[in-house]
């Protein structure tokens, strides 16, 4: 074998196996949490990485909200492996894990992810069916209660940006929202991992208005982008979502921010469009290391501030 497990993409079955195996192999560090189930009744497992003391603040990372963005689940696996391997070896991850618990949801949209492996590589949405339409799926990142289904989303079930029948209509978004609501007093930092275009985005995407701590979020993203540029040629753009890309209401980061998680970001990983969703496995390592650097930069700044 020439490449590591973490420099490959994996089927949903393999990811479920990896989740169980990782928890079994690290019983004192990792706990599996069942958040709920998908529309097609697949389990939504999050991993909790917890070291040393109890009752720490927490970092949440979700991956794979959009089915075709395969680098995103690959990053979640990469992050867990890195945390386990480099705790007490790397100062940044040691400081983060000494000060924060980490919740990681490797695949938020398992039905869609499976569909991209078996049927249509370009599928993006969930796989829910709607009685009034022959079209399938909801854009889970338009389904949260943040200016839900206003300009930048669609109420057409056939659209790629269909917002769903009502906020949190989808079991996947409802499960994540319920969990975050139950942990809102401990979660200090929310991260959602997407692909592609290499950007570090923060609220708001649902309005052109600036977040109350816009400048603080801007500085953190700027710092992370600067750190990435120091090590890699590629430069990450950064800014508020609506101002940087376009209006996109109903996103999870805006919703988490409004819930009270004041440090909330969406990362768009490699690349800049050459490979897009078909990023070759040989690029996984750099894509994940860039994003890891951004996570470490921002998490350390959150620890310093809270």
């Amino acid at each position, binding site marked *: *074998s020439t490449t590591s497990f973490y420099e490959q*993409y*994996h089927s949903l079955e393999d990811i479920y196996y990896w989740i169980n*195996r990782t928890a079994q192999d690290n019983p004192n560090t990792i706990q599996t949490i069942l958040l709920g189930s998908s529309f097609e009744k697949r389990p939504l497992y999050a991993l909790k990485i917890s070291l040393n003391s109890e009752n720490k603040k927490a970092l949440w990372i979700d991956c794979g909200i959009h089915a075709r963005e395969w680098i995103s689940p690959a990053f979640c696996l990469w992050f867990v492996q890195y945390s386990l391997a480099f705790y007490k070896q790397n100062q940044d991850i040691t400081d983060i894990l000494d000060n924060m618990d980490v919740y990681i949801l490797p695949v938020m949209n398992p039905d869609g992810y499976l569909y991209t492996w078996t049927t249509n590589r370009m599928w*993006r949405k969930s796989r829910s069916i709607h009685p009034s339409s022959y079209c399938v799926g909801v854009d889970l990142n338009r389904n949260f209660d943040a200016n839900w289904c206003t300009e930048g989303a669609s109420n057409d079930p056939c659209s790629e940006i269909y917002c769903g029948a009502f906020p949190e209509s989808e079991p996947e978004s409802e499960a994540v929202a319920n969990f975050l609501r139950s942990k809102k007093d401990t979660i200090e930092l929310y991260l959602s991992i997407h692909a592609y275009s290499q950007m570090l985005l923060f609220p708001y995407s649902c309005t052109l208005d600036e977040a109350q701590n816009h400048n603080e979020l801007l500085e953190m993203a700027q710092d992370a982008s600067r750190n990435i540029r120091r090590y890699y040629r590629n430069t990450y753009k950064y800014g508020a979502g609506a101002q940087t890309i*376009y209006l996109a209401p109903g996103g999870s980061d805006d919703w988490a921010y409004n819930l009270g998680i004041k440090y909330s970001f969406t990362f768009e990983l490699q690349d800049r469009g050459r490979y897009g969703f*078909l990023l070759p496995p040989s690029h996984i390592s750099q894509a994940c290391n860039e994003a890891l650097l951004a996570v470490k930069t921002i998490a350390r700044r959150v620890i310093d501030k809270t």
Partner: protein
Amino acid sequence: ETHDQILSITPTTPEQVGIVKNISTQYETALWQPVDAQYIQEETQVHLFVPANSSATVKALLQRHNIAHEVLLDNTNHLIEMQTRNDSTDPR
């Protein structure tokens, strides 16, 4: 064409924007960037997945309307094969 491709298309006039929007909602294409046709605008790159059986028609339409485009990825099938190949070690 025998392969599915990704085209990078840059419309420069409102008319061209309209044509690209129409193309992106037909011919079994899939928008990569932006995510939905409503976001397509002048002077902004559109990345569009075009299946092999629609490629000739789509390119002919783009050429007929003088819409700038290039092939971003020539053989997506090959890349998908690379992505789904499993030759890795056990996670342990």
